[in-house]
């Protein structure tokens, strides 16, 4: 047993790709060792394998790798005995088989198979050494790592990788395994920090000493250790300012963790005069453009400081130089932003409406002026459906001004702030608060992790805008296909679904689609698209299982998904109930009923039937079904889905008894028809909350 260390030295890998690649290298290495029978029995990946990364390296350490594979003996079958021996003498066929199997002719055995008597040999495959397997197989695993964007660098283009490979280290115990990839062959030499270390390679003594030796050369190779160090340092440095806190930003912490090998944190300042600019703009400049953390005072207000994460340790002198450099860059950027902020205000949003005529939304769908007009009309129509609480005047104003910020310099500079900047300008220009907030929130949620608009007007504006885009593109036949969604229509639809699910807006998808779509074909495509998006939302955002989603979402025909909030509530109730034994039994029974109905090609027909008590289990089921259906209607009305599901589960004894005692497919056609009708009625009445036949049950 020995530990395996493998390190790939690279030119700086893009920060966004490192974590996934590190995990993939670990997964692939462990899988390879497992496949090659080089891991001990009961190997625990969590305890026995570890991965590392910095911008300049990916590494894995696997403990307790076997030194060689065990020999494997296997029985192989050869030619038929009657061909292998002529007159008791071995023929060329027998000799060839013996040679191939690595045994003497005398050691060949005879086995009897259904096809007759055949020769057999026990062939022993010698296990290979771990070093041999790793040297031969690991390069293929490295080459198979997925990169969002990769490159050629060597002449003749022998391989693609994220960036050129600079060195490889591969040690099994203290021995080098000569793994080759990207024109490099592994040794034990690696490099420390680009600037803080000497620049000369140094040798790793053994896998166990890897982490400590690198730390000695100013590389914190463990990602979590680096993240921890950064968070601590952010806390520590912020304490220099009384009462201040740094603005938590997990994504940014993650990013700077993958940009550094030896992180430290430096506090910088900017002139308080820039605080007159909206916080949104200042934070965007700092975070998106400079990767700085914002600092807030005790009241949560932005303070004139920033924190930058360096990839070097500093003394007083170098800290001053680096601070001064960063402050100058930030000042220049804030200056630009302030210039744009003031420049843009010279032309108020109201005057920019006509400028939108020159901004193309899509060549066949016209300008943003035309789009704004459509959105305004659609939002007003939806507001009518919603009724009472909507401020129709503010909504109309918001719709008219919503896209005007696209003509401002500030949005051209900070495109990620579209909408937000419109809202801020509108506010500065005296537009009503409700309209300002709606403009500000129109692109919310930007992702599934984002919140929802704060007001009903914001929600309606956002829905109308997205629905108009989807309807327009679908009308032109530009719907997303496979991985292609160039107009981000899925994201737009997800936004609508999320708003409907997570606000109190009394609105379903039905009017949204029918009012936005221009023709019947588009309407139908949009319904199908939204049905799929509701499923996506339930699975990805609400964590609902596939079968629960299938059960509650309904078919395109019965359109159960149209009321998104109701669909979510039903899914949650089904999810909670599905563990129950009776529920599982009823689900299984529904599946059975559906199969029976399908096999009998039963089609629901008008008319009723009469049953007498003497008809036993059949009568009992009918009675029970009737009672439960009545209960269900009430509970559904109150959206008491859990209680409704509990009521459905109570039918189990009658269903079980029915199937035990009654044969549905009675030879008497009248009886058969009557029983099919009973079952069909049950399915129809009971499927209002979910189609239970979709639920996957154990056994």
């Amino acid at each position, binding site marked *: 047993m020995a530990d395996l260390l493998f390190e790939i030295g690279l030119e700086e890998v893009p920060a966004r790709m490192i974590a996934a690649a590190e995990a993939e290298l670990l997964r692939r290495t462990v899988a390879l060792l497992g496949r090659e029978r080089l891991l001990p029995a009961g190997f625990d990946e969590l305890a026995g394998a570890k991965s590392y990364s910095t911008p300049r390296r990916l590494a894995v350490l696997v403990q307790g790798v076997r030194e060689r594979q065990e020999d494997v003996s296997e029985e192989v079958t050869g030619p038929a005995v009657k061909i292998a021996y002529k007159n008791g003498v071995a023929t060329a066929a027998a000799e060839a088989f013996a040679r191939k199997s690595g045994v003497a002719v005398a050691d060949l055995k005879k086995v009897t198979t259904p096809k007759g008597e055949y020769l057999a040999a026990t062939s022993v495959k010698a296990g290979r050494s771990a070093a041999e397997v790793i040297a031969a197989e690991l390069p293929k695993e490295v080459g198979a790592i997925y990169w969002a964007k990769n490159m050629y660098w060597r002449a003749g283009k022998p391989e693609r990788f994220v960036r050129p490979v600079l060195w490889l280290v591969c040690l099994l115990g203290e021995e080098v395994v000569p793994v080759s990839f990207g024109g490099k062959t592994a040794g034990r030499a690696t490099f420390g920090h680009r600037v803080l270390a000497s620049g000369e390679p140094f040798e790793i003594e053994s896998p166990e000493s890897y982490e400590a030796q690198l730390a000695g050369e100013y590389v914190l190779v463990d990602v979590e250790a680096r993240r921890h160090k950064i968070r601590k340092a952010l806390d520590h440095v912020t304490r220099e300012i009384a009462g201040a806190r740094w603005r938590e930003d997990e994504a940014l912490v993650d990013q700077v963790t993958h940009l550094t090998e030896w992180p430290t944190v430096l506090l910088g300042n900017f002139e308080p005069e820039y605080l007159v600019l909206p916080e949104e703009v200042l934070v965007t400049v700092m975070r998106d453009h400079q990767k700085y953390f914002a600092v807030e005072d005790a009241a949560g207000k932005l303070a004139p400081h920033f924190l*930058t994460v360096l990839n070097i340790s500093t003394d007083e002198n170098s800290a001053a130089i680096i601070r001064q450099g960063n402050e100058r*860059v930030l000042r220049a950027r804030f200056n630009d932003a302030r210039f744009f902020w003031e420049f843009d205000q010279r032309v108020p949003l109201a005057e920019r409406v006509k400028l939108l005529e020159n901004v193309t939304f899509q060549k066949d769908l016209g300008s943003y002026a035309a789009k704004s007009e459509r959105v305004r009309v659609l939002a007003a129509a939806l507001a009518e459906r919603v009724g009472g609480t909507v401020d129709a005047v503010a909504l109309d104003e918001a719709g008219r001004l919503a896209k005007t910020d696209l003509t401002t310099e500030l949005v051209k500079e900070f495109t990620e702030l579209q909408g937000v900047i419109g809202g801020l300008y509108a506010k500065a220009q005296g537009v009503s608060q409700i309209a300002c907030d709606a403009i500000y929130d129109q692109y919310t949620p930007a992702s599934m992790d984002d919140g929802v608009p704060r007001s009903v007007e914001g929600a309606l504006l956002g829905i109308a805008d997205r629905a108009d885009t989807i309807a327009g593109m679908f009308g032109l036949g530009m719907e997303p296909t496979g991985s292609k969604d160039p107009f981000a229509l899925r994201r737009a639809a997800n936004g609508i679904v999320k708003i409907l699910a997570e606000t109190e807006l009394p609105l379903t998808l039905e009017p949204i689609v029918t009012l936005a779509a221009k023709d019947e074909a588009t309407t139908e495509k949009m319904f199908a698209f939204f049905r799929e998006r509701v499923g996506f939302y339930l699975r990805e955002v609400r964590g609902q299982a596939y079968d629960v989603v299938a059960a509650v979402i309904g078919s395109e025909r019965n359109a159960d998904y149209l009321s998104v909030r109701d669909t979510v509530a039903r899914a949650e109730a089904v999810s909670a109930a599905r563990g129950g034994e009776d529920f599982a039994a009823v689900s299984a029974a529904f599946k059975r009923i559906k199969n029976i109905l399908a096999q009998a090609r039963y089609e629901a027909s008008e008319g009723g039937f009469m049953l007498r008590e003497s008809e036993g289990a059949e009568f009992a089921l009918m009675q029970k079904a009737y009672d439960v259906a009545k209960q269900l209607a009430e509970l559904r009305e109150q959206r008491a889905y859990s209680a409704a599901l509990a009521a459905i589960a109570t039918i189990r004894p009658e269903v079980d008894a029915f199937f035990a005692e009654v044969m549905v497919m009675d030879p008497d056609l009248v009886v058969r028809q009557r029983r099919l009708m009973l079952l069909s009625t049950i399915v129809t009445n009971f499927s209002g909350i979910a189609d239970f036949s979709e639920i996957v049950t154990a056994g």
Partner: protein
Amino acid sequence: MATAVAKKALTFQELLFTLQKFWAERGCVLQQPYDLEVGAGTMSPDTFLRVLGPKPIKIAYAQPSRRPADGRYGENPNRLFRHTQLQVILKPPPERVQELYLESLVAIGIDLREHDIKFEEDNWEWPVGGAWGVGWQVMLDGQEITQFTYFQQCGGMDLDPISGEITYGMERIAQFLQDVDSIYDIVWARDPETGAEMTYGDVRLHEEQQFSAYSFDYADVEKLWEHLRLYEAECLALAARAGTILHEDSDGKPQADALTVARFPTLGAYELALKCSHAFNLLDARGAISVTERVGVMARIRKLIVGVAQMYAEQEKLKASTGN
């Protein structure tokens, strides 16, 4: 402290000398700036065309780069109509080329231990040239000072070997080293006898004022469209002739004799395409190109530039096969 830094720092022209000398000492041929309007050093034929084909090259040159829409009449301390790039092309890129680059920073007076340097992902793409590469922006204390690119495709063609391109943003580096907030305060030259200083503003402000005014206010839109059409027509005419001259017959032999092949003016065609690109940029700055038109005009220019790149590759191949 600021003044202490400023005194030591190189002037703008010393920076240009020092970097060029640095790369010359590492085997680069120092080329002169290309004498035509280009938006970036990449568009010079010394980069755009010479990265094609198998011949190794090492070239460095300073390239004034014009971007009409970025002009601010000399009033913005950080934006210019015309800025200066120092361009280094290494085909193929040597091992540890990043270390070589860092040495060049040391050469211009940057003590790496006193600064925060990061190589952050930044990929480059020039759709009009059918060109792209992967690489980094080099960040020095929060300022982007260099664009570092491994070219992968040019003119829609895969490159083999690839080239490494290092583009220094000279004004930014000078601002950084001299610790000045405005580009116009950069010391361009200092008289060694009198100590008298010429600033960037002294040397270039009038150009920024006048060319901003020309691009935004004076340029005649109709004439620019006409220029674009004329240059385009001539470029296309050359491309048509290339179709017969830079062509192999059915035996794989050049149709024209070696001298005719060698003299075919692909470089002339490229200049015409660059003229179109500049006319487009001026029209864009003038606000004369609608969003809808934009796509169409860019496709026209792309056809010219990608076409020339393919002509160049074909010509080089034919020259190699005839021993020229």
